[in-house]
């Protein structure tokens, strides 16, 4: 199974990469005509007129063979990356997949099949295979599958952008990265720079047996780079990655970012970190910049509030959740300052779109309200499990080879009412550590014990940043951590960060997701020294 093994190699050691940056304003409702350029004609392998017939055939064959519900999807994924080392390009890669997916509910069980060929004949074959699976599985189905109702719609939607990244010349995309090295290497001690650009295009046409027909195109862009500083005498080395978040946007977002202007500072940070004092472990007050806090939200709020996890449906792999159904509306999750919302509607959010992959209109809803656990992420199948009448619209399949299931929407911390900035949090702190950017991250399978690193660590004494530190990670229990939150930045300090790849499920699927937050402060968090294996 070479393809899957290759996928695992690429994704497992470093899934969830990212990095401070501005958020671009983008419309999430159907954009006004002419704002977003249409996709180049040549990019769609099969004309849309033919697709309607193919999807119709798949649904008809499924119904004829006994399906009580079916959704058929033609899904195209394109991803272009450029990798660089210092002053040269090492890889320019374009990856595309295209094909037909069919999910059926028949004999009370789910079946799924897909094909890279998109024709009426293949549609019939895919239907036959999907039905055969449902039949094979029906004997082991105990619970009745009921889908929460959703309105039937015919809609088109796409990312609003001014520059389609796929129309930007490869050499221009590469030039953006290659311009960084001359700046970075001016700083003594900088030895390497590894960079990459990403452009991804997800196009899908979904037809349901209930009559919905939804076409969507989602474009996402990102740039990552890190420098390595080295001390040849001691053999020590450290890396410093920049913190520009990936975004659902066109190339204008990357072109407008301060990548080059920041390159010198990023390099200076690396050298400062290399010479920094190792942290002294112990309990400290922790100030987290948005570039660090977003990932902590992802792991300690985003994943625990997935309903399938809470009910054991991910027990074999991603795990379960401490936020069990009996705690809904009762559990004190965080301090009163903390309100966290889920949405698939934030402009620029990597998970934002108009409809999910089972045709449900996207929305925003609360997960944690003034510290109380109040909401779950659901799909049509799951809504009824907690007595809700409608799905929250979080079904997603990464490509035509994948079964749609519950995936994380954007999950974000609301800004506080006071107009506090990061500098206000620092001024108010007597003895603490300030962390920006993402380093190492890990959390247990029920989402209690987490340990996070960062990119830059600073000692805070008597309201001032005094010096850089190294070998820092914070380790906590999710609930104790969120209950210790005593300062939350205001609206002006809120930033949208995110990741192009979050893994879940078996077979593993990748989902792009954003998390917005202001800086926040947490009291008395356990700080460890990673250079000494976390020993005190």
């Amino acid at each position, binding site marked *: 199974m*070479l*393809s899957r093994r290759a996928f*695992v*190699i690429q994704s*497992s050691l470093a899934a969830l990469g990212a990095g401070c940056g501005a958020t671009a304003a983008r419309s999430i409702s159907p954009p006004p005509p002419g704002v977003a350029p249409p996709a180049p004609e*040549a990019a769609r*392998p099969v004309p849309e007129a033919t697709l309607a017939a193919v999807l119709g055939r798949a649904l008809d064959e499924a119904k004829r063979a006994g399906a009580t519900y079916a959704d058929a999807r033609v899904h195209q994924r394109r991803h272009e990356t450029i990798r660089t080392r210092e002053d*040269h*390009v090492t*890889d*320019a*890669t*374009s*990856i*595309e997949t295209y*094909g037909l997916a069919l999910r059926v509910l028949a004999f009370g069980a789910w*079946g*799924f*099949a*897909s094909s*890279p060929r998109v024709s009426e004949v293949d549609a019939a074959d895919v239907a036959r*295979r999907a039905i055969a*699976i449902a039949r*094979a*599985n029906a*004997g*082991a*189905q*105990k*619970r009745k599958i009921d889908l929460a109702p959703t309105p039937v719609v015919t809609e088109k939607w796409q990312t609003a952008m001014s520059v389609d990244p796929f129309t930007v010349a490869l*050499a221009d995309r590469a030039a953006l990265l290659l311009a960084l090295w001359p700046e970075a290497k001016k700083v003594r001690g900088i*030895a*390497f720079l590894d960079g990459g650009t990403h452009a991804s295009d997800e196009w899908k046409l979904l037809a349901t047996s209930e009559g919905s027909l939804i076409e969507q195109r989602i474009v996402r862009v990102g740039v990552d780079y890190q420098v390595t500083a080295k001390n*040849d005498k*001691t*053999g020590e*080395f450290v890396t410093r990655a920049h913190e520009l978040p990936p975004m659902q946007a066109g190339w204008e977002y990357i072109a407008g970012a301060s990548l080059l202007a920041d390159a010198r500072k990023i390099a200076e940070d690396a050298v400062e970190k290399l010479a920094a004092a190792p942290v002294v472990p112990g309990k400290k007050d922790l100030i987290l910049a948005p570039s660090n806090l977003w990932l902590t939200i992802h792991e300690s709020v985003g994943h625990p509030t997935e309903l399938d996890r809470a*009910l*054991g*449906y*991910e*027990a*074999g792999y991603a*795990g*379960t959740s*401490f936020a069990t159904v009996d705690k809904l509306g009762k559990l004190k999750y965080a301090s009163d300052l903390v309100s966290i919302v889920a949405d698939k509607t934030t402009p620029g959010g990597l998970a934002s779109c108009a409809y999910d992959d089972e045709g449900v209109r996207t929305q925003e809803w609360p997960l944690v309200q003034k510290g109380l656990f109040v909401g779950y992420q659901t799909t049509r199948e799951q809504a009824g499990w907690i007595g809700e009448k409608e799905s929250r619209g979080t079904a997603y399949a990464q490509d035509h*080879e994948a079964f749609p299931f519950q995936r994380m929407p954007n999950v974000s911390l609301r800004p506080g009412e006071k107009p506090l900035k990061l500098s206000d949090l620092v001024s108010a702190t007597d003895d603490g550590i300030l962390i920006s950017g993402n380093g*190492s*991250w*890990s959390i*247990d399978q*029920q989402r*209690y014990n987490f340990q996070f690193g960062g990119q830059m660590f600073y000692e805070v004494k008597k309201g001032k940043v005094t010096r850089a530190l190294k070998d820092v*990670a914070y380790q906590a*229990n999710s609930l104790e951590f969120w209950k210790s939150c005593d300062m939350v930045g205001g609206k002006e300090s809120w930033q949208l960060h995110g990741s192009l790849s979050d893994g879940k499920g*078996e077979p593993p699927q990748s989902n792009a997701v954003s998390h917005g937050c202001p800086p926040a402060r947490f009291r008395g968090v356990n700080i460890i020294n*990673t*250079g000494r*294996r*976390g020993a005190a």
Partner: protein
Amino acid sequence: MNPAEVAAQVVALIKQQAPGAEGRATVSFGRNNETRFAANEITTAGDVEVTRIAVTVARGKRHATASHNRLEPAALSDLVKRAATMASLAPEDPEWMGVLGPQALRTPTGAFDAATFALSSDVRAEAAKKVIAAADGKGVVAAGFYSAGGATSALATTAGLVASHSSSEASLTVSARNPEGTGSGWAGAERVAASELDASALAAVAVDKAVRSQKPGAAEPKPWKVVLDPACVAEMLAFFLDALDARRADEGRSFFSKKGGGTRLGEKMFAPGITLKGDPFDPATPASPYDGEGLAIEPTTFVENGTLRSLVTSRFWANKTGTQPRPRPTAVHLLGGEAQSVEQLIAMVDRGLYVTRFWYTRWLDPQTMTITGLTRDGVFLIEKGVIKGPVNNFRFNESPAAVLAKAKAWTQETARVPARGPVMRVPAILTEDFHMASVSAAV
């Protein structure tokens, strides 16, 4: 058409559409047939046909790669055009080594089983039902994944290299938990042939651990003597293999870098008897005999009796440093030791822990090769050579290199574990001073 014929056709298209350029075609036809279960019922399943065609075109030092999954002649022609256009627009890469010519390639035996490639949803569902019945019988809840399939792939270049490889793979993983959520167990296996997977045996191990791990006692975070099941060892080995790179070592940004310059090749770094081989022709680990460029993979000893012998070396870095290229292994085998069984390892421990599996492992510090992660699905306290009972889970911060350096004993038998990265066969290991850093309340 089969993958080799498609690859040959794509090479002809490169020659025709981009005269004077060099190029490589990689074609794979595969199947991923999968059944997933949880909460003691089958949840999702799918039969997925996977086609991939990748084309690399190079003109001088400018190169690019394009891939898609469509076989129609016009689609293949478009793909070559896309790669050629991208290559002409790409900046020069001084590291480009050209495509490879003919390689002396051998074929591994036993890498492919036709029945596994085409395994039906009925067979998978039957296996899932056996697991569910075993769990129901003991009042616990099973979740797991049965995956079967494989691929035939072919690679050809404009310089005359032709290579192909077929592999199949079947894996079954089983988690079991008691309904109260106070105990959890796991078992998993991976084989070339699905017929060698024993669903009942795997279910028995997972269910037994779920029953025995209920209501764990408290154990403190500190350095422990530990017996690590093969799943733990394979998880750590993936990081070890990631670090095993000649260029990063030479550049001074690796655990394998020597202070003052150069690498630690030839250093006795690990416990005597620790030997790590990469051999796709070993019947224990049949795998692709060539890498992504088509470079032949020769049997390689990376660690021999505790001494670091080889590092993965790219063609560019080998050329620059006057050494031999050494492809990233497609299969690795951490050779077995003397212990007859895991029980015998446990019998050697006065006070320690027996660990089933790791979870959410991530790099912490590449300088010391330290990673973080958690234990999961069964941790047991060992006293005076016998298991006393279950204890809480932990977060660990530890180095895979230190685990191999401080290994005291390991099992004769090695297991092929469903793991990330290459095909892996590893023993269970007894090691000491393993840093459990904090307690995890998770079960």
